[in-house]
């Protein structure tokens, strides 16, 4: 463990240091596979060919280690395995598995390396390989960054193909028939005479063979499941309303906990008085926490009631008390000493802009909360030596580590059971609630404790999306965009988030300029600079992370320039498209939305196109004026993920991403007063309700070379496409989110 820790501390130096040659691993370490965690407790009658497939005489279990936070990860992982295993989705069970380095994320490295997705240079390729090697050596199992599909697409099919061929080997051994005369279907090996031998029957024998490796994957024209509409594995449970989440966990002797900690994020508690709470009905125990207190009771509501009766004296926050102070910190960050990195410097933007009065604009993006509908919760039991933890989380091993730190035991003594999550949007990457539950468990041993956050506690401790601004200058000539010089200053959500886990991010944070520096256009003179805002409230990854603000900044400014050039917003974007993938996405969204057609009075449309997580996504938003209010009528979306694995879930994720992007851009911000978030529940930070939701028409393209995920890429274009549509409708340019500060929506 000592060694792993050392590497962990260095892991995130990769941004620059490792690329420059600072960190290397021996070939052996990088090539060595991690042990199969399923091998540890296999019965004699069970076979596991790799960390994802377990077959016994009772059934087939597929391990789906990526957390399911509503994005359908469980289904997509099972589907990829089922494709090559030749089983149907109703013939298998799934399990999240136990946290293991074997489930290291093979795709996060590509995104983490600070190079453009279009950059195939030796330096960029080397950096991606280095990041990937590092994640493998660390054995980092993580769900995020729209990486489940890219991580799983080849890996899980290969794992399943290996298992299938090994089962055939067992059948060949038993029957004496040559392997290449056998085929498989419906979880059976089929002999030439049609006799079927079930996988479950063959499992015990197959376990004695070395798994067959390097099996050729099937061609797309042989796929039964990939690219076809399927019924998600959780659809029946969720459509009958019977799905159970972490918050629903029942255990014998379960007690219920609520907490209150300093609403000034990260600040300590001076003192508390729980005298009146102590004697309330159902209260079992008051537990002091490092920056607050917990009530343990016999009912969650009683715990909520009692914790609200505790009087606290909170310490001051180490960030400004009020929003004026936060914005001052943002505005004062545009200076050389705060430069995080010069990300793009092509042509000569300085000279191009010097001989003219440039077009200038600045844009603002506020803090926004995650607030998935299932509040943060965790169930824990500690017997003095070992602990069990049940919660939905995106980084399982870190949960073990954090709990172990509090309890003073080894992470290996913490059993973690991942749970279906009622949403996350980046919220279930955090550990505060888990550490608090561990503090309670330390005081109340041998008792299962379920800690549930009230919505108010959840809002108060949501580490929001980065606050930020952009300042842009541009030049147009002859009806075209000629030069852009854009500076982006935001809080570094990556640094803030990693800091809470005891890690450091040396080097620049590409999320500060995400969506901006990788804009999908070739601009003749382009400069992009990122500045890290320090001293503001702690922040974290919010669905689509940096691109959620960056996409708004750059695509709003591009639109302003195009209007100044009196060009067509779609035609000029197509002219500037950086790749054929971008061009085809733009052309497709133009066709889908019937761009250029007459819309009639009081109607207009706007467009935006952003690349995030390696996916180019373009959206056309149609709006209309109803009295003095704006109504969003329709959104057309085109995204290219290389290969759509499940078209039903693809459409659902795209629609959800658009709704997420629009709703928060229209209606939401987190503001601090006296160091505390002013928004305490959904009446003050709704997102969007059904009556504001437009019709959303989705089309997926498959021209891109690499297979990518779709959870996040639909978010960033929504806000600028809406702002650009509103400009086309009313002539009012919205440069600050949320838009409802400036206009009214129906």
């Amino acid at each position, binding site marked *: 463990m000592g060694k792993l820790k050392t590497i962990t501390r260095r892991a995130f130096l990769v941004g620059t240091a490792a690329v420059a040659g600072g960190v290397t691993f021996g070939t052996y370490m990088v090539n060595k596979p991690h042990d199969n965690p399923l091998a540890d407790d296999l019965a004699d009658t069970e076979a596991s060919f790799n960390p994802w497939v377990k077959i016994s005489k009772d059934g087939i279990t597929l391990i789906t280690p990526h957390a399911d*936070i*509503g*994005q*359908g990860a469980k289904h997509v992982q099972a589907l990829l395995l089922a494709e090559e295993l030749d089983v149907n989705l109703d013939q298998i069970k799934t399990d999240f598995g136990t946290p293991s380095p074997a489930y290291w994320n093979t795709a996060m490295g590509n995104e983490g390396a600070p190079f453009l997705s279009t950059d195939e240079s030796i330096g960029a390729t080397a950096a991606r390989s280095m990041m990937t090697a590092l994640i493998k050596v660390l054995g980092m199992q993580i769900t995020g960054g729209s990486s489940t599909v890219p991580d799983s697409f080849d890996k899980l099919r290969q794992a399943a193909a290996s298992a299938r061929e090994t089962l055939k080997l067992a059948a060949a051994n038993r029957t004496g028939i040559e392997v290449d005369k056998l085929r498989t279907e419906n979880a059976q090996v089929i002999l030439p005479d049609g006799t079927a031998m079930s996988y479950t029957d063959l499992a015990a024998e197959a376990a004695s063979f070395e798994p067959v490796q390097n099996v050729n994957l099937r061609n797309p024209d042989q796929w039964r499941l990939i690219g076809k509409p399927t*019924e998600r594995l959780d*659809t*029946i*449970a*969720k*459509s*009958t*309303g*019977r*799905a*159970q*989440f972490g*918050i629903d966990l*029942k255990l014998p002797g379960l007690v*219920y906990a609520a907490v209150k900690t300093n609403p000034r994020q990260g600040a300590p508690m001076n003192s508390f008085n729980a005298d009146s709470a102590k004697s309330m*009905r159902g209260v079992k125990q008051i537990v002091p926490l490092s920056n607050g207190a917990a009530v343990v009771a*016999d*009912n*969650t*509501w*009683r715990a*909520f009631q009692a914790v609200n009766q505790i009087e606290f004296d909170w310490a001051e926050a180490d960030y400004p008390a009020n929003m004026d102070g936060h914005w001052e910190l943002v505005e004062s960050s545009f200076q050389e000493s705060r430069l995080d990195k010069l990300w793009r410097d092509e042509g000569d933007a300085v000279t191009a802009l010097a001989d003219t009065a440039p077009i200038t604009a600045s844009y603002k993006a506020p803090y926004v909360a995650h607030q*998935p*509908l*299932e*509040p943060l919760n965790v169930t824990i039991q500690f017997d003095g030596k070992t602990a069990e933890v049940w919660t939905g989380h995106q980084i399982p091993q870190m949960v073990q580590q954090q709990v172990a730190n509090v309890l003073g035991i080894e992470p290996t003594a913490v059993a973690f059971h991942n749970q*279906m*999550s*009622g*949403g996350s*949007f980046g919220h279930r990457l955090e550990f505060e609630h888990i550490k608090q539950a561990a503090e309670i468990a330390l005081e109340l041993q041998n008792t299962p404790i379920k800690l*549930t956050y*009230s*919505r*108010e506690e959840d809002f108060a401790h949501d580490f929001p999306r980065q606050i930020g601004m952009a300042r842009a200058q541009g030049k147009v000539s002859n009806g075209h965009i000629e030069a852009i010089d854009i500076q982006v200053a935001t809080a570094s959500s990556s640094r803030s988030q990693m800091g809470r886990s005891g890690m450091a991010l040396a080097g620049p944070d590409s999320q500060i300029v995400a969506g901006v520096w990788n804009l999908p256009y070739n601009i003749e003179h382009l400069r992009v600079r990122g500045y890290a805002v320090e001293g503001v409230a702690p922040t974290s990854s919010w669905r689509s992370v940096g691109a959620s603000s960056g996409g708004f900044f750059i695509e709003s400014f591009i639109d302003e320039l195009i209007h100044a050039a009196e060009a067509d917003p779609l035609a000029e974007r197509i002219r500037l498209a950086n790749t054929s993938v971008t061009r085809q996405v733009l052309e497709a969204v133009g066709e889908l939305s019937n761009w250029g057609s007459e819309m009639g009075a009081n109607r207009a449309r706007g467009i935006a196109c952003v690349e995030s997580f390696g996916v180019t996504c373009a959206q056309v938003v149609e709006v209309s004026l109803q009295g003095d209010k704006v109504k969003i009528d329709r959104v057309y979306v085109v995204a290219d993920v290389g290969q759509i694995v499940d078209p039903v*879930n693809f459409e*659902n*994720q795209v*629609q*959800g*991403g*658009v*709704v*997420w992007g629009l709703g928060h851009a229209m209606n939401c911000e987190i503001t601090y007063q006296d160091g505390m978030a002013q928004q305490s*529940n*959904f*009446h003050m930070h*709704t*997102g*969007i*309700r*059904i*009556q504001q*939701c437009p*019709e*959303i028409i989705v089309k997926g393209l498959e021209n891109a070379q690499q297979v990518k995920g779709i959870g996040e890429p639909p978010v960033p274009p929504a806000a600028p496409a809406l702002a650009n549509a509103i400009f086309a409708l009313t002539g009012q340019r919205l440069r600050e989110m949320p838009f409802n500060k400036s206009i009214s929506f129906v």
Partner: protein
Amino acid sequence: MKLTVDGQTHEIDVEPNMPLLWALRDEIGLTDPKFGCGMAQCGACTVHIDGNAVKSCVMPVSAVQGEVTTIQGLGDADALHAVQQAWLDHQVAQCGYCQAGQMMAAASFLAKNNNPSEEEIDAAMQSNLCRCGTYPRIRQAVKSAASAMREA
């Protein structure tokens, strides 16, 4: 205090002001109604009392007069309610946390109006929040369920 839920009578000993939601979840052990906000802002806790949709997180248990129905009492996998069938056909759910509440709201509404306009659907469903953004599918599913209920 007696509470009839999904046809079963439960004897519970709780404060009169305990919200119905927490009596269901932590006293009786019925966890299909979800906790989302605690102030009738999200609708994840929606149940029926004598067929009417109510937000159980703000309904004091002492004020409950009539039979409580949770989604379990509405239908199950072997005998789906038209609303559940429509939710399944349209694969509405993403995380699914709000959907029991959404379906309870829709079922109560459609029982009174099985031929709603788009505006009426939006009005009936607006107090149920979905953070995943499944609204386009919720609309389609409510329409399908309405159609099925008209034909039934």
